[in-house]
């Protein structure tokens, strides 16, 4: 066994490590890293899977980490494409953001929760813990279990901006670090209420109507249901080569069809401006 030659190992190791360290700046050739929002992640993964099956030999690495992390990664060059589920803030405006699809946020409760409809104001009161028990609506006298995303999440920021406005989400809320995890909690806990990407709603949770408007594609495209945010692909400079090709595929009818099938909303009928929550 080579373990006998202690010092020689050290020398070999140095020879191995050094070039690896020096070439550390090199990105893997023929591959693209897509990093960022965990909301966008499952859809980007589906797109990547489809794209890679059409272009064998090409590698697209998708991973989460969050909208802010994705934008940072693009800025520092760790990733070619950043995924964001929120709009860029002023300090990020030097990067290029391309909307690829729209996503609505659904407020969800347990499948057996008798509620079907809440007004925006009621939702605000619940999430800021001004109302803390379900008995307000003739439900049982059980405390409401709030579930929210963590600070820095694009979904949370969208929820904050579009629904909460100036009011704060209560600190007593449970925090989960992905939409799927929130959905899990709401599936199991009768007293839970949370918010997730509309595309992730399944038959094990119930999406509430907001002010009587249900979150359907039709309502969204006609701007009746307004809790909508864009999914963005963020680039440092004009996308080229593989990144551009991937983007083109996503924006093509085939790519958009895949996304719409997964529950997202095509952007064509929607004008660029997005209404914010009224105070």
């Amino acid at each position, binding site marked *: 066994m080579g373990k006998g030659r202690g010092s020689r190992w050290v020398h070999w190791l140095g020879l*191995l490590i050094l070039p690896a360290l020096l070439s550390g700046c090199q990105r893997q050739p023929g591959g693209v890293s897509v990093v960022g929002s965990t909301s966008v992640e499952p859809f980007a993964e589906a797109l990547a899977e489809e794209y890679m099956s059409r272009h064998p030999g090409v590698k697209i690495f998708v991973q989460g980490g969050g909208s802010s992390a994705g934008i940072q990664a693009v800025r520092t060059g760790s990733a070619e494409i950043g995924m964001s589920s929120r709009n860029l803030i002023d300090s990020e405006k030097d990067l290029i953001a391309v909307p690829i699809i729209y996503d609505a946020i659904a407020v969800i409760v347990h499948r057996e929760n008798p509620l079907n409809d809440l007004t925006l104001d009621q939702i605000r009161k619940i999430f800021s813990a001004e109302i803390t028990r379900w008995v307000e609506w003739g439900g049982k006298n059980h405390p409401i279990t709030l579930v929210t995303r963590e600070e820095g999440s694009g979904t949370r920021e969208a929820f904050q901006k579009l629904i909460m406005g100036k009011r704060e989400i209560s600190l007593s809320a449970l925090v989960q670090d992905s939409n799927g995890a929130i959905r899990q909690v709401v599936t199991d806990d009768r007293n839970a209420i949370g918010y997730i990407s509309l595309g992730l709603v399944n038959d094990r949770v119930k999406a509430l109507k907001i002010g009587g408007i249900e979150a359907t594609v039709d309502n969204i495209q006609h701007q009746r249901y307004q809790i909508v945010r864009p999914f963005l692909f963020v680039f440092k400079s004009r996308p080229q080569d593989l990144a551009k090709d991937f983007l083109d595929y996503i924006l093509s009818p085939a790519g958009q069809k895949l996304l719409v099938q997964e529950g997202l909303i095509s952007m064509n009928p929607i004008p660029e401006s997005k209404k914010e929550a009224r105070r």
Partner: protein
Amino acid sequence: MRISRHHTQALAKGVIWVAAFFTLIVMFWILYQVLREGLPLLHIDFFLQAPRQMGRAGGIFSTIVGTLALTVVALIIATPLGVGTAIFLREYTRESRVSRVIRFGTDCLAGVPSIIFGLFGFVFFVIFLRMGWSILSGGLTLATMILPTIICTAEEAVKAVPYTYREVSFALGGTRWQTIRKMVLPNAIPGVLTGVLLGVGRSVGETAAVILTAGSSFITPDSLFSPIRTMAVHFYILAREGISMEMAYATGAALILFILAINTVANWLMYRYIHRA
């Protein structure tokens, strides 16, 4: 009325029996639960296919590759460093300030929580050295985490080599290095291997530090700079997101079996080694 000490003993022993039984049963029940749900789902395809549809279908091949890659990189770095440290401490020095400092460093390193290693690996390997989320970043971070274990077991292994072996070598005119190379190391190898296997066990199960440094992309990697997902990370993500409970159980069962195999080999090695010496 004083209770006789025999009654006290019966009571105490009874309590201990109950407590111990209960504890052991709960501990093994946890394993049993995951294995019971997951084992039936394991078949050869599961290990050979990559995950598809975010993990809802397919297998865990790429995560196996990822786990192995990370572990190999970690071992390549940590084993020479660990064995070298052990040799230094045992062969080249007596208890001195230097050795005390080294031991202090090793002991402290052993106690650092994995999330701190994750933070460090992220800020140092991923960002500062610009390695990005990759097998390299993850492996190097894991190496720092298993180093104390390897140092500790290697030291025990070197210590266990009887001094007579060294005496013989010196008497025949061998230098210190020749003695180490030809007498000490070959006999310490089984002990070192035990430490290596313990390190492997830790690498395989580590999650927090791996997510922060090796990323979580689940396609099969093609270079040291590719991000990867390990089995433990895959299990964590599946379990949390509720994507597919069956897949979660199956991955968990695979993970447990893997650890079981490693531990069994380590125990067997230790048993043989102790009986040899």
